C-alpha cells in the first residue's frame, strides 16, 4: 500500500473552485473595532516606538499582545499594563497579537535589557506562552517597562523640539505638554523612536496606578457578539482544501490498513494520507521514546477533500483496520486497581518521600485513635469549546500556520521541525482561541497539520471532530490518595501520613523535571505546601503510568489534590467533633497566607453548621500559581437525592488586581470548570481506548445548574502577584462534597459526584 493516493483530476478542478467560489458572502463587520477580526493581522503604517507599541499620526496606539486570548482577557489586561505607563488615551488603544516569527528572529531590545526587565538572550516578546496563570504576574514588569520607556522617549522628543528639559514635559492622555507647548504622541512618535536615554525610567508602584485597577470594557467583546472574531477553525485561505483525520483510538496503537479506493470517487474527495507509523510525519507516536510523546504523530489517516463535510464523510465511510499496540486489555478499572494496589502497600518499593517531619509512621502505629480514608480522582479531558484544528501551508521556502495556540513560539518550532525549514521562515498566525485550558499548549495538531500540508503542497485546514478531539485528548491524570492520621483523645492530630499514587505528567513527557522520584505537580499542595501543620508528617509518592498521554489541565495537580486533602481535613474535623472552619484555622501555622481568605469566604457566605437536614455548607481551600482561593459552597439535597449547588463564595488573595471584573469573570469561569468536573467529569477506558467521545456522554454544566457565584477580594498586596486563571478551580470539588456531607452525612471519596446515590 502506498502512503499517499491522489485523485489528480478532481484535485485540479476542485482546487480551482475552492479558491474562487468560497469567499462569496464573506462577512465584513460594520464597526471599527479595537481588535481586528483576524487578530494576527499586522497594522499598516504608524510609527513603532518599540517592539510593543505603534503610534499612528491620529494618536491611535496599537499595543502588541504576547499572550493568547482564550477568554481570560489578555487582549484587555496586557494593553492596560503598557498603557498605564505610556499614559496614552485608553479610548485610542488597539490590540494585536505580537508576531512569533519576529520573536524567533529578534532578541530583547537594548532598552529592555538596560532596564533589567529582560535578558539579552530573551526573545523580543519574551514569554509568549499562555499558561500557569502567568499573563499578568510574569509579564507585567517588562510590559510596564515598554510603556514607561516609550513615554520618556516621547517626552524627550518633545523637549528637544521645544528646547526645554524633559523633566518639565508632561504626558497625559496621549498629549505632551510644557508651558504653552503641546502636541500629541502621534506627532512625536517618529522622533521618539530614535532617542537614546541615559537611563531607563522606573516603573510605577501600585499606589500610582490610574488605569490599572479599573474595570474598563473588554476590547474583544464587540467582535464576539456578531461572529466577526476569527478562531483557528474559521481560517480561510485562498485555495484552501480540507482534511478530516482519524488516528488510532488506542494511544500507541496503529492503523493496520485502510481502503481509499472505496471512497475516492465520492464528490470532492482528493487524497488520503497515512499519518505516522511509516506514513507522513517525522515523529511517530511511540511511548518508548520520550521525545515523541508530546507532539509526535499518532498512527492514522487523513482524507483530503474540497469541503470539510466531504472529507469527513469519506473518512467515516472508508474501511479501516486498527491494532491496539498491546494496550487492548487496558481499562480505567485496571489502571485504577493497579494504583490502589500500590496505595494499599505502604512498603511498596516504588514510593519516594515528598515530605517528612518527625516520625509519623511510628506515632500512628502506637496510636489507638486513627482516622483513615482513600480518595480517587479520574482522568479528564479538557473539552475545549473549539474542537482541535490547524490550518497550514508549506512551500519549499515558507510555512504559514493558522492556529488557536497557547504557545505560538512552540507552534512555530514544531512546524519548522516538521516542515524542515528554519524558524525564521515559519509564520504562526495566532487566532482567537475557543478556550485552551492547557490543551492548546501541546501542539500535536500543529505537527499533524504541518505534515499533511507539506505532503499536499496546498493550504489545508485540518479539523478534528468533537469525537476525535475527546478521544485524542491529552488527559488530566487520574490520582489516588490514602491518608492516615492519629489524634489525641480530643481529636487533635498528632501524626499525618499521606500516600499518593498517580499517573505523572513529568515522568510521562518531561522526565528531567522529576526530582528524586517526585513529580512536584502531582504532590502540589500536599508536600511542604500543605496549608496545615502536623507535629509528625509523612508524604510518599509513587508513579503508576498508563499508555494514555497526559497533560496540564486547568490548575494541574492542584485540580485534584485539593479534593483529597480538603475532604480528609473535613473527615478529621468531624471525627474530632469540631467545626470544620475552626478545625482548619486551628491547624494553620502563625502568619499563614490561607487564614484571611478562608475567614473572608466563611464570613461572606454566612458560614454555619446549624442547617436543616438536606442543606449543607462546605469548605474548600487551595494555593496555586501564587494565589490562595478559599471557597464555601452551599448545597441542597432533596429527599430523593437531587443535588443543587445553590451558591459558592470565592475569596481570593492574588496580591493585586489590575481589572476587578476580569478577575470576577475568571472566578465564575473557574467555578463552572471545577464544578463540571466534580459533578460529571470522568474519562473511561475500555479495550485501551477512550469511551467518551461527545457531549452526550461527556457531560458539561449548563445554565440551569449554575450556582450563584460571589467573588471577594482578600488582597494582601505588597510583593504578592498571583495568577487568577486557574487557582479557583481546585477548591470547588471539596467545597461541594463537604457541603454534601453536611447535608446528608454521605462522604464522597471518589469523583465524579454523579456516580453516588445521594438519596436519603
Amino acid at each position, binding site marked *: 500500500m502506498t502512503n499517499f493516493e491522489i485523485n489528480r483530476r478532481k484535485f485540479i478542478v476542485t482546487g480551482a473552485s475552492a479558491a474562487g467560489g468560497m469567499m462569496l458572502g464573506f462577512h465584513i463587520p460594520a464597526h471599527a473595532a479595537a481588535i481586528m477580526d483576524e487578530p494576527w493581522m499586522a497594522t499598516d503604517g504608524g510609527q513603532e516606538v518599540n517592539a510593543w507599541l505603534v503610534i499612528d499620526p491620529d494618536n491611535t496606539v496599537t499595543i502588541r499582545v504576547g499572550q493568547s486570548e482564550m477568554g481570560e482577557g489578555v487582549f484587555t489586561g496586557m494593553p492596560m499594563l503598557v498603557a498605564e505607563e505610556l499614559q496614552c488615551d485608553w479610548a485610542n488603544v488597539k490590540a494585536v497579537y505580537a508576531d512569533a516569527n519576529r520573536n524567533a528572529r529578534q532578541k530583547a531590545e537594548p532598552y529592555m535589557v538596560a532596564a533589567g526587565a529582560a535578558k539579552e538572550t530573551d526573545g523580543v516578546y519574551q514569554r509568549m506562552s499562555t499558561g500557569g496563570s502567568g499573563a499578568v504576574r510574569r509579564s507585567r514588569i517588562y510590559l510596564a517597562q515598554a510603556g514607561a520607556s516609550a513615554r520618556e522617549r516621547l517626552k524627550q522628543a518633545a523637549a528637544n523640539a521645544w528646547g526645554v528639559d524633559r523633566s518639565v514635559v508632561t504626558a497625559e492622555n496621549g498629549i505632551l505638554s510644557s508651558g504653552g507647548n503641546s502636541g500629541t504622541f502621534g506627532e512625536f512618535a517618529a522622533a521618539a523612536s530614535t532617542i537614546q536615554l541615559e537611563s531607563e525610567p522606573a516603573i510605577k508602584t501600585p499606589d500610582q496606578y490610574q488605569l490599572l485597577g479599573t474595570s474598563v470594557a*473588554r476590547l474583544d467583546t464587540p467582535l464576539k*457578539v456578531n461572529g466577526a472574531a476569527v478562531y483557528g477553525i474559521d481560517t480561510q485561505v485562498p485555495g484552501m482544501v480540507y482534511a478530516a483525520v482519524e488516528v488510532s483510538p488506542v494511544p500507541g496503537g496503529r492503523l493496520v490498513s485502510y481502503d481509499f479506493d472505496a471512497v475516492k470517487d465520492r464528490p470532492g474527495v482528493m487524497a488520503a494520507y497515512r499519518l505516522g507509523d511509516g506514513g507522513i510525519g517525522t515523529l511517530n507516536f511511540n511511548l518508548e521514546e520520550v521525545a515523541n510523546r508530546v507532539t509526535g504523530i499518532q498512527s492514522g489517516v487523513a482524507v483530503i477533500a474540497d469541503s470539510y463535510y466531504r472529507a469527513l464523510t469519506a473518512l467515516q465511510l472508508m474501511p479501516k483496520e486498527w491494532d491496539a499496540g498491546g494496550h487492548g486489555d487496558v481499562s480505567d478499572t485496571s489502571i485504577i486497581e493497579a494504583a490502589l494496589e500500590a496505595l494499599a502497600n505502604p512498603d511498596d518499593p516504588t514510593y519516594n518521600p515528598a515530605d517528612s517531619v518527625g516520625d509519623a509512621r511510628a506515632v500512628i502505629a502506637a496510636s489507638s485513635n486513627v482516622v483513615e480514608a482513600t480518595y480517587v480522582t479520574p482522568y479528564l479531558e479538557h473539552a475545549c469549546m473549539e474542537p482541535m484544528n490547524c490550518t497550514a501551508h508549506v512551500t519549499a521556502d515558507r510555512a504559514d500556520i493558522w492556529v488557536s495556540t497557547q504557545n505560538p513560539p512552540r507552534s512555530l518550532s514544531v512546524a519548522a521541525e516538521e516542515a524542515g525549514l528554519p524558524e525564521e521562515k515559519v509564520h504562526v498566525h495566532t487566532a482567537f482561541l475557543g478556550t485552551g485550558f492547557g490543551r492548546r499548549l501541546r501542539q500535536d495538531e500543529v505537527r499533524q497539520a504541518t505534515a499533511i500540508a507539506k505532503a499536499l503542497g496546498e493550504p489545508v485546514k485540518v479539523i478534528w471532530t468533537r469525537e476525535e478531539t475527546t478521544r485524542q485528548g491529552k488527559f488530566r491524570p487520574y490520582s489516588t490518595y490514602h491518608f492516615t492520621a492519629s489524634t489525641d483523645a480530643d481529636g487533635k492530630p498528632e501524626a499525618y501520613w499521606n500516600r499518593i499514587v498517580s499517573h505523572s505528567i513529568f515522568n510521562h513527557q518531561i522526565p528531567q523535571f522529576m526530582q528524586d522520584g517526585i513529580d512536584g505537580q502531582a504532590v502540589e499542595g500536599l508536600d511542604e505546601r500543605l496549608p496545615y501543620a502536623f507535629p509528625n508528617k509523612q508524604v510518599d509518592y509513587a508513579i503508576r503510568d498508563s499508555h494514555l498521554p497526559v497533560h496540564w489541565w486547568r490548575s494541574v495537580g492542584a485540580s485534584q489534590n485539593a479534593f483529597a486533602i480538603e475532604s480528609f481535613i473535613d473527615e478529621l474535623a468531624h471525627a474530632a467533633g469540631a467545626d470544620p472552619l475552626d478545625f482548619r484555622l486551628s491547624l494553620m501555622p502563625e502568619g499563614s497566607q490561607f487564614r484571611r481568605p478562608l475567614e473572608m469566604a466563611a464570613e461572606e457566605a454566612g458560614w454555619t453548621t446549624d442547617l436543616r437536614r438536606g442543606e449543607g455548607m462546605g469548605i474548600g481551600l487551595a494555593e496555586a500559581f501564587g494565589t490562595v482561593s478559599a471557597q464555601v459552597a452551599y448545597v441542597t439535597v432533596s429527599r430523593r437525592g437531587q443535588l443543587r449547588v445553590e451558591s459558592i463564595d470565592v475569596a481570593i488573595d492574588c496580591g493585586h488586581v489590575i481589572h476587578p471584573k476580569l478577575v470576577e469573570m475568571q472566578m465564575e469561569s473557574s467555578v*463552572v470548570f471545577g464544578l463540571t468536573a466534580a459533578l460529571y467529569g470522568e474519562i473511561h477506558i475500555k479495550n485501551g481506548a477512550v469511551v467518551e467521545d461527545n457531549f452526550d456522554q461527556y457531560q458539561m454544566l449548563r445554565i440551569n445548574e449554575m450556582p450563584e457565584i460571589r467573588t471577594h477580594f482578600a488582597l494582601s498586596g505588597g510583593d504578592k502577584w498571583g495568577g487568577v486563571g486557574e487557582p479557583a478551580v481546585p477548591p470547588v470539588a471539596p467545597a461541594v462534597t463537604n457541603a454534601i456531607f453536611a447535608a446528608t452525612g454521605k462522604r464522597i471519596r471518589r469523583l465524579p459526584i454523579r456516580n453516588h446515590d445521594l438519596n436519603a
Partner: protein
Amino acid sequence: MAFDLNVNGASYTVDVEPETPLLWVIRDNLGMTGTKYGCGIAKCGACTVHIDGKKVFSCTTKVSAAVGKEITTIEGLSEDNSHPVQIAWIEEDVPQCGYCQSGQIMAAAALLEQHPSPSDLNIDTLMSDNICRCGTYSRIRKAIHRAAEIAQG
C-alpha cells in the same frame, strides 16, 4: 446537487450533497464563520441559527430542509451590533473566549421573540441547549433580562 438558499436576506446557490449539514454549507460554501461547530450532534448549541425565526441546530439540519426558508445567522442579526441582545451582551461583558456566543446570542434572540419578558425558568429551559465552557451563564442570564428591557424601550 444545487440548492437555492436565502441567508441573511441574500440568495445563494450551493452545489452540495442533499444531506450536507446546513452548518458546513454556511461555513465552508458561504464563508460565514460566525456559526460554530462544537459537537455535530445537537448537544452544545454552538451552531444555532434561525430558520423562519425559530432557532435550529444547523449541525443536524440538512441543507435540503432549508431550501425556500429564511435562514438567519449571527452575521445577519444586525449590521452594527444593534440588536438588543448584542447591546446587552456588550453592556454586561458576557463573552470570555466567545466561541459559543454566536449560538448563545441566536438562542437568546429566539427566546425573546417567544418570551418578551422572560422568567429565570424560561431562560433555564430555553438556554440549557447551549454549553459555555467559560462559564458565562450568570452573565448570559443577566444580559437576557437586560435585552428584554432594551427591546421594550
